[in-house]
């Protein structure tokens, strides 16, 4: 390889080469505009409060290519789901996907196809201005909009089984993908989505993903994010949830992979009586592995409630960041918000930075938060050892016990199974 290119140079050339893709002119214009905004904004630095603990400066000196199309013989996923869309290195794979069980009035298609076939439906969602100032990678994602998922569940429709969106990175190194997912659950619709990012024979790649979830009134939406990228990869995600009246959203994030993973999750309560339950689990086992969860819950409407429970276990020289912020606007009466983050440190060199924040401008609220950092309880360990349990076994039991609270209430057995496998793989280290 020749000398390392700076970020704007390789981005510029990638962006120019992307112009040849056939896309409607409004999208082309939007992408140009977003690209300019990214260049103006630049990469975030640690001087910014929102990026205080996560250093992305190395991206400045790393160059990524656009991915090539590969066709793997088979894919590894521990999830057996009946409805799935599969993306290989960011490209949609029709052969691998399976949508036969989908109710007929549900639209589930790769974004590129949706832009062609349902332009009017997709356009307003795509043109929405997201929080690029705070999260500049979103500008970048918008600038490279091409592929991703468009899911539209119409009124009163209940999708019977989870929809699995699999992003597999394989047989290539040093590439970058920009998936953009738009998920819309109309009134009283019910749907469960699993977004999985995983890798096989791929190194040093970069996933920059943006997922938007829209839960209209009385919709029930469950969103599982399984991030199990290769431990040399960079994964930067921004998930935005928009909730209308009486909508009910569950989110669950599990982060095991990547060298650097950044998960931004924003919940906007636009109308009253909406509810959101967020859970997260991060299991870190490599030196210099860094996982950062930034959550912002915007209580802009009265009578909404949110709960947040994130747990993490850290080994080796890994680092975890947690920042949960509850913002209650004036007038958001009867706001009920809970936040908690618990961390378990298994090694002397692991590091946790946690910051549960409350910003409250309304008196009629109940907001609670808590955070703990510690190691496995010596007494509990002694108790087990005294009963003849091997040390390794005892540690595994206690680790499982620590995690159990997060696993609670996951209805779907295949997801539960998947998470348990990840935990088992982790705890047996």
């Amino acid at each position, binding site marked *: 390889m020749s000398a390392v290119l700076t970020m704007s140079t390789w981005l510029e050339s990638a962006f120019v080469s992307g112009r040849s893709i056939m896309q409607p002119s409004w999208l082309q214009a939007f992408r140009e505009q977003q690209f300019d905004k990214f260049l103006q904004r630049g990469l975030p630095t640690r001087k910014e409060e929102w990026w205080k603990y996560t250093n992305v400066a190395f991206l400045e000196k790393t160059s990524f290519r656009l991915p090539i199309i590969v066709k793997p013989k088979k894919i590894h996923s521990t999830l057996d789901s009946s409805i799935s869309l599969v993306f290989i290195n960011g490209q949609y794979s029709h052969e691998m996907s399976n949508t036969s069980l989908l109710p007929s009035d549900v639209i589930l298609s790769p974004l590129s196809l949706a832009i062609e076939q349902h332009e009017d439906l997709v356009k307003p969602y795509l043109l929405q201005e997201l929080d690029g100032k705070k999260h500049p990678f979103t500008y970048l994602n918008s600038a490279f909009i091409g592929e991703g998922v468009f899911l539209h569940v119409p009124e009163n429709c209940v999708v019977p089984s989870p929809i699995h969106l699999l992003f597999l990175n394989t047989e290539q190194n040093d590439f970058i993908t920009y998936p953009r997912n738009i998920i819309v659950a109309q009134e009283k619709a019910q749907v469960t989505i699993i977004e999985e990012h995983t890798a096989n024979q791929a190194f040093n790649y970069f996933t920059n993903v943006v997922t938007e979830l829209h839960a209209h009134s009385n919709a029930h939406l469950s969103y599982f994010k399984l991030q199990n990228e290769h431990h040399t990869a960079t994964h930067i995600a921004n998930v935005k949830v928009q909730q209308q009246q009486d909508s009910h959203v569950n989110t669950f994030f599990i982060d095991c992979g990547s060298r650097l993973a950044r998960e931004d999750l924003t919940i906007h309560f636009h109308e009253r009586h909406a509810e959101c339950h967020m859970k997260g689990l991060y299991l870190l086992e490599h030196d210099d592995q860094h996982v950062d969860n930034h959550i912002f819950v915007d209580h802009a409407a009265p009578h909404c409630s949110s709960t947040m429970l994130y747990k993490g276990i850290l080994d080796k020289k890994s680092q975890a960041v947690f920042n949960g912020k509850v913002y209650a606007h004036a007038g958001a009466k009867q706001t009920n918000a809970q936040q908690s983050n618990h961390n378990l*440190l298994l090694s*002397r060199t692991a590091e946790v930075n*946690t910051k549960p924040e409350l*910003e409250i401008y309304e*008196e009629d609220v*109940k907001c*609670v938060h*808590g955070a*703990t950092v510690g190691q496995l309880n010596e007494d509990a360990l002694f108790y087990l050892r005294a009963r003849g349990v091997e040390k390794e076994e005892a540690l595994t039991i206690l680790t499982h016990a620590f995690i159990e609270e997060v696993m609670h209430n996951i209805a779907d057995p295949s997801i539960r199974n998947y998470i348990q496998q990840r935990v088992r793989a982790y705890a047996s280290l």
Partner: protein
Amino acid sequence: MSNQYLKQIVNKNYQYGFITEIESDTFAPGLSEEVIRKISKLKNEPEFMLQWRLRAYQHWLTLSPPEWAHVNFPEIDYQSIIYYSAPRVKKDGPKSLEEVDPQLLETYKKLGIPLHEQGRLAGVAVDAVFDSVSVATTFKGKLAEAGVIFCSFSEAVQEHPELVEKYLGTVVPYRDNFFATLNSAVFSDGSFVYIPKGVRCPMELSTYFRINAANTGQFERTLIIADADSHVSYLEGCTAPMRDENQLHAAVVELIALDNAEIKYSTVQNWYPGDEEGRGGIYNFVTKRGACRGTHSKISWTQIETGSAITWKYPSVILQGDHSVGEFYSVALTNHRQQADTGTKMIHMGKNTRSTIISKGISAGFGQNTYRGLVRVLPQAHNARNYTQCESLLLSNTCGAHTFPYIEVKNPTAQIEHEAYTSKIGADQLFYCRQRGLSIEDAVSMIVNGFCKRVFNELPMEFAVEAQKLLEVSLEGSVG
């Protein structure tokens, strides 16, 4: 109804807002190297002090004011502030209480601070700071018997330069932050305490700060050193006249506790908070930090923050010595347009260090109350333990209460807990009290008092009474 009650509080007047007519020596507004040289010369300081001030000033010129705090105020013009103002003295300064200007004594009497040595609160030795200088220190003789040095900072520079040189700026270096650096350059007076080895200070020490002159900034510096096996309890109080302009108060407090020493530092901060429209009031931008240098040392901060237009203050403890203990107890009240961004930092460096943070925020009117805290555990701090609890009470639907705790842990043996909640007074709590025949005012006052009790319990007796009264006055009939 509760709204009426709230209005009553909001309209409550600040009772320390009078101005003392007294002749004073005052510099022209503005800051320059010359001003610093003048202050230093006026105080007849040794060369090391002047050099230190000038280094701070040079560094300050390179800094810009911090913007991260959750407060809003117009930019301060540092050239329009008067950096030195002192009541005029006839000769070389008062040698004893009898020589102090009776006007000054009258002022302190009005504030309820006894500058005579036989008063009701005669168990407390007081250092009274009026604008830029210390005007009197009581009970010096009695303290000297025990070997305790308690005097104004200027005096300490003259009499104990070796102690000042050894410890000044070792906890809050002159490069620390914008306001601490400014203070290092221009500070005019303050209190100095040295407790020798093995001495338990025979009485409470206290400093009473009063801003009187208009357009002045007050920059005092307090340095407390507790040598091995010693103990001291120190109180601090402050008031200012009512004026329409904002006045800057940028103080620095440094505490040093050596092996087995204990320092207890209590503050009742009641600077003029401004009127209900937010006009006037003190900008209280203070850097307070203690270092537990020795093993088994302990530093405890207790603060009752009811005054100031803006409070920006984070009394911190650096837990260097093994087994050292840091504590922070705080009640912060914001009413009208007051803004408070306050909290603490606990830096765990030594083994088996422990810290406790109890913070209670009360917001009323349009007040914005922020808790901002840091608990940091460094890799070598084995078995560090922290417990943090911050609670916020909201008394109006126009105020705000915010919590920004930073927790940074680099050692697995650390055990860190943080919990917080924000809510208004529960309707069920009120109902319970009313049902038992309490008026709404009494019920609210009782609940607020209960809310703050844990912190009030940490205050020395003399202050606990004052703090409770202060809160009662500020919240009279407020909630419900």
